[in-house]
């Protein structure tokens, strides 16, 4: 935060005028607990959203982790969430498929809508909801079963037992996650014998096997070496246009390479959200620029 002692007014650089009378230093204002409006670029709002996050607040016990997040996630586009550690990116992601339900003492207000269906509606069956999404975690977490069973897990628990269907889904998903050629001869070996990068791509295959409406990636490359990271990034590129992806990352290059839109979060608030090219080259806010260029965070 020391980087932002300069209190000169923020110049309008983006395709739209900043909100009227922006606080001189938004990050300081955020840290001070003041309400700060998010800068959301018009092009984001022009997209068809698959997931709409609407004034979403979340508390862990007495501590508020998310502050009135409002952001649409565009359909069939890759959206990256960036921001310093502890800013609530993963919390937001885990709120989308309601994994935070498993944590004790979590309280939320606001709502999210998946293709128009309210996620936090009390009548919403959370199991059904999660079946409409896929999620990949920081550390590869293949299940203790064969590669094949890992991929078709979502279908298995849904009661699908037809060999033909399962075989087809398995091959399609593994091809989709660029793993097919590496594992096609050992589909029935334990998934735990794969390398880290392969395991992570297996988890992606597992996540896309049930044709999810949204794919949630929570720092999918943070536990991988550079080569495996490259493969997973190539894969995310390929998923572009076919799946709506929401990816949390700490790696600015990764965000700029793989995503269509980027949202910058800080201390539980959305600061700026726009097309990736604009966020990385001419963001509205100097704070965003400082973060994405590595001067802060």
């Amino acid at each position, binding site marked *: 935060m020391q980087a932002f002692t300069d209190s000169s007014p923020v110049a309008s650089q983006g395709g739209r005028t900043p909100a009227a009378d922006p606080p001189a230093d938004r990050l300081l204002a955020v840290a001070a607990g003041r309400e700060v409006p998010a800068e959301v670029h018009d092009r984001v709002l022009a997209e068809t959203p698959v997931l709409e996050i609407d004034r979403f607040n979340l508390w862990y016990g007495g501590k508020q982790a998310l502050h009135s997040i409002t952001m649409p996630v565009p359909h069939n586009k890759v959206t990256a969430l960036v921001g310093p550690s502890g800013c609530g990116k993963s919390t937001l992601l885990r709120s989308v498929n309601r994994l935070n339900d498993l944590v004790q003492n979590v309280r939320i207000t606001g709502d999210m809508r998946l293709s128009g269906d309210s996620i936090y509606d009390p009548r919403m069956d959370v199991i059904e909801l999660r079946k409409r999404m896929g999620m990949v975690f920081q550390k590869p977490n293949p299940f203790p079963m064969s590669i094949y069973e890992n991929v078709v897990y979502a279908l298995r628990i*849904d009661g699908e037992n037809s060999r033909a269907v399962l075989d087809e889904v398995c091959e399609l998903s593994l091809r989709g996650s660029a793993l097919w050629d590496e594992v096609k001869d050992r589909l029935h070996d334990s998934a735990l014998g794969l390398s880290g990068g392969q*395991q992570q791509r297996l988890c992606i295959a597992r996540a896309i096997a049930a044709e999810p409406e949204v794919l949630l990636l929570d720092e999918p490359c943070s536990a991988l070496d550079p080569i495996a990271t490259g493969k997973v990034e190539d894969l995310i590129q390929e998923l572009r246009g076919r799946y709506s992806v929401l990816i949390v990352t700490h790696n600015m290059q990764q965000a700029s390479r793989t995503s269509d839109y980027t949202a910058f979060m800080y201390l539980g608030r959305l600061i700026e959200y726009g097309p990736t090219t604009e966020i990385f080259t001419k963001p509205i806010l100097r704070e965003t620029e400082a973060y994405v260029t590595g001067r802060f965070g």
Partner: protein
Amino acid sequence: MNSETVRPPRRLRSAHSSLAAHGEPLVWLTGGALALAIAMISGLLAFIAFRGAATFWPVPLVELECADGRRALGEVSGRETVAAVDGRPAVSRTLLNTATFEITGNHYEWFDDSRIVGTVRPEWATAVERLEGGRFHGVPVRLVHGEQTVAEGPERAWREFERIQPGVRRRVREIVRIDRHDRGILQRQLRSARLAVVQGDLRSGRDSTAYEAAVREEQAVAARVQERSALLDADTARLREENAGWGLEFEAAGGEKRVLPLEQIVRAWQPNRLSTTGKLGVYLARWWEFLCDDPREANSAGGVFPAIWGTVAMTLIMALLVAPFGILAALYLREYASSGPVTTAVRIAINNLAGVPSIVYGAFGLGFFCYVVGAGIDEVFFRPALVADNQPTFGTGGLLWASLTLALLTLPVVIVATEEALSAVPNSMREGSYACGAGKWQTIRRIVLPRALPGIMTGLILAMARGAGEVAPLMLVGVKKLALDLPIDGTFPFVHPEREFMHLAYLIYDVGFQSPNSQAAQPMVFTITFLLVTIIALLNVAAIWLRSRLKRRYVMQQF
């Protein structure tokens, strides 16, 4: 540099002088503790294994001649030196298994080495194992059949004996089989017919047709049993007749002669003449008898088959009972219950249960399982036996109740181990499963349990090892000194979980400390201990093998 003198760098204490930094004393301390533990355990096991394995090896028979002309024939089973007391010099003496109880009143006798003037190994010295009366040592002199001598002289008598003995032995076994098995069936038929009458009386009264039918049936059964019984009598009488009269006359060391009926002789061998192969044959035959036969002579001779059976059956039934119980309880504690003071209290209580003396579990098993549950079962299902014979069926100790009691005893072990195994399952796996849309139970069944299974198996292995070696509670809930009817046999309904049974660990206590002839029983104690340890080890090895298979399938290191 300024003008001040440069201070030399502060010298730390030399590494050589600091034991804590350099000497690694803890390696020796910790390694020493482990070495001591291993030495004690392996020493104990080696001692048990050596003494246990040596019991059945044919030891040479030696004849001692004392200064006063007395002679004794037997196996040397111990030596000791009595320290000098009150001016008397130290004496070394030899313990001889003279096996001359009916002549001298002793099975064993000490001989002062100073009084022994000669030691020989008579070629024809024979050790005889009898059905009753223990061992006998002597030299065969003639084989008799009734009044007439069939063979004279050690060599010819022995040859004839070896020719005739197998047939005699076979007939003896046949008689035992008829008495125990065939007559047992008849007894049970008679009993169930009699109980059917009581049942008819209890249910419909004496005037009912059902009662009359049962009475008629009982009469028919009684007639049939009598008829069959007469046939069996004839059979056994014939077999006895064939065996009768055969005898082998021995000359004991003192010159006294004695005729041993052949039907009383289980086995005889001449260790001084036997080659190594011959000894091995006798050794294996005695092991075989030990493993596969019923006990004789207050369990101090013969086999321990019913006890092996009871130990294995009880341990396995216990494992089957404790596994679902413990795993379900641990699942609830770890996966469903929210953590709070109540859960913590339950956990502490479970850990404390592991410290309750096992006899308390025995008392609980007797008081609750036998006298409450078992008595209830008897009231409802086995009332005739209760009324007619005043005999409980389930209302007394038995295999089922003993297994249940031990299951209760080992439950804390299984719960704690299972909880630990469950908490070792990474949360990321559970989250991954939930993220795929799996429910709680689906996640537990497909992800958590398979992954935790090796750890759960470890708990079961520990429980089995603890349960198989337990004696105190079993004495209260169904283990008996002698119970030849196995809990599974050929009579309906084939499985009899209510039957009392024998157990190796109890047998150790019984043979070792309750036997009238404790000297002779001592080697048996080692053998039974050896066998029990081996059986527990085998059960554990089987479980460990299973666990390693599961581990290979479900748990492997990542990366």
